[in-house]
């Protein structure tokens, strides 16, 4: 049986990275991941697939955090700090950060987590058609701004 400590030690960084891509803020990402572990810890014995459960929790909590901090995100989005020091990557990241949260979540789960759209739809509890539409709109905006 995998303990919460083992999953924490082995996957925390991975989860923080996912949360950073969803939220655009490392501080917020660490908050979300920490809260996800705290929440999971209380029901650990009932969780069959801890990592999948934690990822779903992180995605859900990132959406919650994003809604609450929409205004702050507007301010954060203005800061074009270099993240990777690769100009084209940083510029694209700047655009990705400014996608509507629902669209960015689909983009991250599809292109970073390599999840099929049907799995994303299941994780997010949205109709597959909605997820497909959100990806389409995100890509359309990326094409417009990156062309």
């Amino acid at each position, binding site marked *: 049986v995998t303990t919460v*400590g083992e999953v924490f030690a082995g996957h925390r*960084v991975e989860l923080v990275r996912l949360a950073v891509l969803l939220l655009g803020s490392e501080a917020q990402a660490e908050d979300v991941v920490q809260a996800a572990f705290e929440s999971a810890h209380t029901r650990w014995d009932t969780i069959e697939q801890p990592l999948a459960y934690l990822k779903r929790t992180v995605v859900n909590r990132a959406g919650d955090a994003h809604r609450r901090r*929409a205004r702050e995100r507007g301010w954060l*989005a203005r800061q074009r700090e270099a993240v990777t020091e690769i100009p084209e990557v940083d510029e694209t990241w700047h655009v990705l950060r400014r996608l509507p949260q629902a669209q960015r979540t689909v983009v991250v789960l599809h292109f*970073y987590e390599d999840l099929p759209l049907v799995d994303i739809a299941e994780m997010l509890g949205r109709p597959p058609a909605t997820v497909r539409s959100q990806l389409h709109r995100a890509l359309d905006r990326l094409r417009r*701004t990156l062309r």
Partner: protein
Amino acid sequence: MTETHEKKIDPRLDAHIRRTLREVAHAVAPASTTDLLVLPRRRPGRHRRTAAVAAGVVALSGLAGAVALAGAGRDDPPAAQLGLGSDADVMNAAPQRLFLAPWWGELRPDGTPVRLELAGLEPHGAPQPLPHGGYVVVGVHPVEDPPEGFDEETDLAYELVVVGADGEVETERQIAPSTLVGATPTEAVLRRDGRGATHIVTHDLETGRERVLTDEPSTLEEESESGTYPNQSALVGNTLVSVEPDYRETGLNGDPLDGDGPFVATDHCQMEVVDLVTGDRDERQLRFGCDLAEGVEASPDGRHLAVVYEPTRAPADGPFEVRFAVVRLDGGAVATDQSLSEGGREVGYLGMAWQDDATVKVALLDAAANPDWNFDVDPLERDDLIVEDRTVR
């Protein structure tokens, strides 16, 4: 479905997105920790402060002036028929009340900031002043620990609350998911998503009776998904004026796919005027470089719109700028356009209110003195507030 869809994605764009996400993710190096039990929660007080931050913040509006936009070219139906624009003199009286977002306070006329009673709600849209000295607010009760499978879209209960001048809750009523965009003395004006369109709905404050007035354009619906780019709205008589980035134009200084940046995503903001009686819409581009509108307020006479915005092409590595402009609603002429970041000071926009038809009081947060202001600064503390008058002409 998925395979078919993936085949449609431009391979170069696909590869570029994957590379960007991978590089950014690997640039993240969280502090090493191996003990869950001793890992402290970061900034434990943050949730209390940010619980009041609105999702899909709509900037301070709050006017229900009787002045229709010039050139509307129609005969207004009686106000009683629409429920809009009645008692407009009371609602339009200057000086207007100045609400502070997103921590939701009010700057009293003597300069004292006070916290608004929100009945525990996380506002969706700014609270709107009412003529009896109170205000109306729409929002949800924050959920700190949502259970697995919790869906904010379907599981959150939205409420409309009327607060009296004494700060006591007068009315508390559950409503469908909505964002408050304006109010008349008798009705709240709500933006509500549904069935592929965004509707403008009036909600009678006394009876709760609702009426769908019109649909909003699909572009507004798209941008309102997350609130990242909330469109900023003001109610002017029977007209809703909104400002949001115009994504149809991009200022591209290079091709980032070829590593030849930098570029910006948006060059202009568009002002959209929606006639709530006829449903007619008119869009026009604002005549100044605008990357993001932070707030709008209509003047007491209904002729001007004050816009606080972030300009296009702000230096990537320098302090960002916040500017203040006033445009004529009947033609878009710019009456003034001035920086709120004089001398390179870093400020955050909190709110504004017209004092008369030529003066706007603007409330700002001194961001430079508070490097962590995104989360930890309470602008209701006097030391963090900057309040100054801006002259229109």
